[in-house]
């Protein structure tokens, strides 16, 4: 990535290629390039740092600090539902979230709502153990709604502060599976009308433009309150979250930076941008 002081066409081409290869997609790339070109016409770009400044200010218009909060305190039990396509990192992220909030002194219950995939419950059990939190599971359960209902009920009885619900991975073009998600949402509401208080869509950091379609389609099944983008410790930049925020106004709340229990960070747009250019 050329760090020249003069804004040449080569520089602009390289910047556009860079943004595009960060998975921003054509529309978001075009929009950010417009801002850069407009600034360069006004002679506001003397060096590479100026580019970062402009992009930061543009991202600042897209992401807002206040909507990144998860207000765990506002109700008890606070219910977080975790959804997303297969292999995105849901179960691992739940382990990390449980650990984070347990360390803040919250009583956390994890509900093993993936009744489908081989060894899904065993995997989540291991994470509950590592996070030192309780887990609700039922090896015999085939119906996720039934199990999740029982799990929430158990969380209420045990006066948990936070209940995190794991769900099976599913592709958004499988109508039956998306209907199942809507049913789970309705089931949760039978016990706690305002729940889930947070519905987090987990996206794989390496996902391409399909990430936008995932957000669109999952949103139709369950209102999504935030994104988690995982595997940003790799070389992928996860730029699709910019397109998702611009088009669907869904904010990123956390990023996954590894496979260990502490590898979860609250989303910070400035740090994210720095990481993209790193």
């Amino acid at each position, binding site marked *: 990535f050329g760090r020249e002081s003069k804004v040449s066409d080569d520089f602009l081409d390289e910047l556009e290629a860079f943004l*595009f290869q960060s998975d921003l997609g054509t529309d978001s790339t075009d929009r950010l390039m417009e801002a850069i070109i407009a600034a360069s016409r006004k002679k506001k770009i003397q060096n590479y740092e100026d580019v970062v400044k402009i992009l930061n200010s543009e991202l600042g218009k897209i992401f807002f600090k206040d909507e990144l909060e998860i207000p765990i305190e506002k109700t008890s039990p606070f219910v977080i539902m975790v959804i997303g396509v*297969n*292999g995105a990192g849901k179960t691992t992220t739940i382990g990390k979230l449980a650990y984070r909030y347990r360390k803040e002194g919250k009583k956390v219950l994890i509900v093993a709502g993936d009744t489908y995939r081989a060894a899904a419950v065993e995997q989540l059990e291991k994470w509950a153990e590592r996070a030192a939190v309780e887990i609700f599971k039922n090896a015999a359960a085939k119906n996720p709604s039934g199990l999740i209902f029982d799990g929430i009920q158990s969380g209420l009885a045990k006066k948990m502060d936070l209940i995190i619900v794991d769900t099976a991975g599913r592709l958004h073009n499988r109508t039956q599976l998306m209907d199942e998600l809507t049913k789970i949402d309705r089931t949760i509401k039978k016990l706690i009308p305002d729940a889930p208080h947070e519905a987090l869509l987990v996206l794989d950091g390496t996902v391409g433009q399909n990430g936008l379609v995932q957000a669109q389609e999952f949103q139709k099944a369950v209102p999504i309150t935030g994104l988690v983008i995982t595997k940003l410790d*790799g*070389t992928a930049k996860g730029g699709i979250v910019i397109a998702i925020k611009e088009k669907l106004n869904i904010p990123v709340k956390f990023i996954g930076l590894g496979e260990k229990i502490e590898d979860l960070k609250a989303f910070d747009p400035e740090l994210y941008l720095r990481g993209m250019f790193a």
Partner: protein
Amino acid sequence: QLRDNLDGIFKSLRGQGKITDKHIADAMRDIRRSLLEADVNYTVAKDFIASIREKALGAQVIRSITPGQQIIKIIHEQMIELLGEGNAAIDFGGLPPVIIMVAGLQGSGKTTFVAKLAQYLKNQGKRPMMVAADIYRPAAIDQLIALGKQIALPVYSENSNNAVAICRNGLKSARESQANVLILDTAGRLHIDENMMNELKQIKSEIKPREILFVADGMTGQDAVNAAGAFENELQLTGIVLTKMDGDTRGGAALSIRAVTGKPIKFIGTGEKMSDLEPFFPDRFASRILG
């Protein structure tokens, strides 16, 4: 979509008037945008467009009554050519057991693919055994053992923290039980994780697999070339598997991975069931990428 766009660019001609450089340039720009939106890598798309432009100019498109369709045909053929060469079948040469090592990034679908492949090969009359060499992910070994039970095929596993030793012992076990195919499931890893990439190189040098398959998530975006390129450099892959193609991603990663590794795409995963595995067909796939 792309077809309509290209028809639109050329419809003003309708049998009269000459195709200009501007027509071709507009067409190329539209094709490029379509490929990028299909997740074809930026640089791969650029090279691909250059070859299309060359063919379009050389192929007397100007004389065609339907230049838009002619260009689509060129793109289609070029894409099939790019996607398709090379042997897409599993190489069963050498002394048994034929060893197949499966590798890739986290969550791409390796463990599921290992079981699907075992089932597929059993249906072809082979006697496969699987090796659970992922010692890191919680319950990874349980997962493969559970899948093994589902398809009634043996899984070698042991309670150890040495993946190379597990593979070595798995090979021994395969020879003793007369399995004629051995499939190694490895942990998901980042191509930039030196220690983990070294683990794969150690397994390769000691166990000497006949096939090294890179399993990639079909919805991967621009990063596909980075991961695939690195795995290719470090391991010299023999084939590619694209998973989760039952989704609605256009799958441009296929073109990118094929372009950067030069290796054949052997299978695509089309679901979570053990039967959801298909051999790769370049012509069907080309239509999908074009959208």
